């Protein structure tokens, strides 16, 4: 069984101060730490579990600059067999569907039973790549999957819906599955794994935008600008030293009946 996992290297902005750069279209990146996209890490783990249970080969692919090889090396260190980086230098601004077209061009002459992606990227928050890639490759898909059972010629998945519901679905293979966080526990790479991964080759490919169907020349959505939103209905801030802030908050809790 052949499984591919699409990985994205993203800035870790969960607790960082995010600033807009001079272009007005991107953020200042030089002071940020970068890591594997959180949902992609769960997708990778799902593939590694399938490798152990079903003797699958795991291949990694990432669209990005040279630095994206960091996340590919990490995946190789955890047990993936092969990795490819599709260079993004010539792609310019593109949305998730654009990235899906680039990935589809790479996948088209290859044969995988399952393609995993994360369900959402923590930077752009799009949730587009998986289902768009499936459509481009003529495969079925399921998104926001937290549990997955692989059988002959089909898989059964549980998709996470709003409000504490799970949707159980069957898909024929080959198919694309986007993995939600929380369904497994991503492993850490071993020291031995990291040593071995350093020597493994990474296939280098050049990103190509797939051609739109004949006779149609749509102007795809494009980014105009990014900005920090105005804070509306902002909180009344409790100021002072730590001791003063704690005192004021305690008084507030008393007023609200919590003390």
């Amino acid at each position, binding site marked *: 069984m052949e499984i591919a996992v699409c990985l994205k290297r993203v800035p870790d*902005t*969960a*607790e960082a101060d*995010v600033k807009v750069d001079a272009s007005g279209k991107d953020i200042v990146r030089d002071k940020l730490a970068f890591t594997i996209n959180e949902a992609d890490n769960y997708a990778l783990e799902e593939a590694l579990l399938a490798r152990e249970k079903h003797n699958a080969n795991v291949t990694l692919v990432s669209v990005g600059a040279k630095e994206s090889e960091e996340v590919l090396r990490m995946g190789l260190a955890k047990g993936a067999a092969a990795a490819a980086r599709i260079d993004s230098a010539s792609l310019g601004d593109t*949305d998730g*569907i654009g990235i*899906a077209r680039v990935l589809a061009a790479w996948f088209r002459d290859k044969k995988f039973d399952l393609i995993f992606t994360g369900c959402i990227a923590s930077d752009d*928050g*799009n*949730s587009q790549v*998986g*289902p*768009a890639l*499936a*459509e*481009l490759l003529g495969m*079925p*898909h*399921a*998104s*926001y999957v937290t549990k997955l059972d692989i059988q002959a010629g089909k898989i059964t998945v549980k998709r*996470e*819906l*709003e*409000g*504490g*519901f*799970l*949707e*159980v*679905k*069957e*898909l*024929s293979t080959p*198919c694309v599955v986007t993995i939600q*966080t*929380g369904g497994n526990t991503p492993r850490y790479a071993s020291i031995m794994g990291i040593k071995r991964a350093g020597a493994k080759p990474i296939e280098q490919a050049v990103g190509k935008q797939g051609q739109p169907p004949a006779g149609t020349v*749509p*102007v*795809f*959505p*494009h980014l105009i*600008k*990014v900005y*920090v*939103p105005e*804070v509306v*209905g*902002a*909180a*009344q801030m*409790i100021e002072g030293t730590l001791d003063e*802030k*704690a*005192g004021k*908050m*305690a008084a507030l*809790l008393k007023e609200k009946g*919590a*003390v």
Partner: protein
Amino acid sequence: MSSILVLVEHRQGAVRDVTFEMLTAARKLGAGSVEAVLMAENCDVLAPSITPHANKVVCVSGPAFKEFSYEPYQKALVKLIGEKKPSAVLIANSAFGTDLGPSLAVALNAGLVSDAVAFTEADSGFSVSRGMYAGKLVADWAMPSEPAIIMVRQSNFKPEPASLGGAVEKWDAGDVASGAKTKFISLEEVPTTGIDIAKASIVVGIGRGIKEAKNMPLVQEFAQDIGAVLAASRPVVDAGWLPKEVQVGSSGKTIKPKLYIALGISGAFQHIAGMKGADTIIAVNKDPKAPIFSVAHYGIVDDLHKVVPALRTKIKEMKS
């Protein structure tokens, strides 16, 4: 005149709130006739709840539409959009909608923008604003080509009443079931086995700022001090430090306690959707720009690991 199609989202026989939020946003757009697309096993059942909110309800019935499944929906929508040539199609940025939107856009060779929080008509097509970096930034996108497929954030637009009394137009999707590669099996509800956080009047919500499992006793003891139950945002549940049933947000529980104290929660919209109905919200976060401060009533910019111990001391003093 051009039209705006709004895909009605329903589950287990009930129209989901986001549908009325989208219909309100579509009416305010003023960019054309608002046409709700209702696909269901028998759409006559739900159509009367939609007609006041739209100029027209396109009613599509068939067993394939009983449960939401992107495959039959996509086949029907490709045909319907081809016939109606709407300027925009609004779909919820939900677990259902995001399963459908991107593949539909590819099938139509149309543009799509995800997680839209505002949109207006532009000289050519639409201008759409959306969140990035978990709400820390907004991005403006141009969507020059029609149809523009706009994925609308849930719990973002306030639904408003209307009395349009739209006509019901029956539309036949034809065969959408043959050749299916996916099959709906069932819907499962995650059982609540312990404390139901939706019933608590004081809730302490823990977020990524807690950092490590070893810090959990601190907030557990604080919650005990003030008679609160402990809840969490997604990262804390994903890490396994609290059970799934106490997750607050769009994929967890929606709660409306008297008092909600958010500790180390930045306030991604998925979380805010689940707690913004609380009577009083107090947020503690290191980042002064954290989106949680736009929904909280009171805020403290500081490290929860410093604030909580200091606060516990103050509360002890008060009690003695």
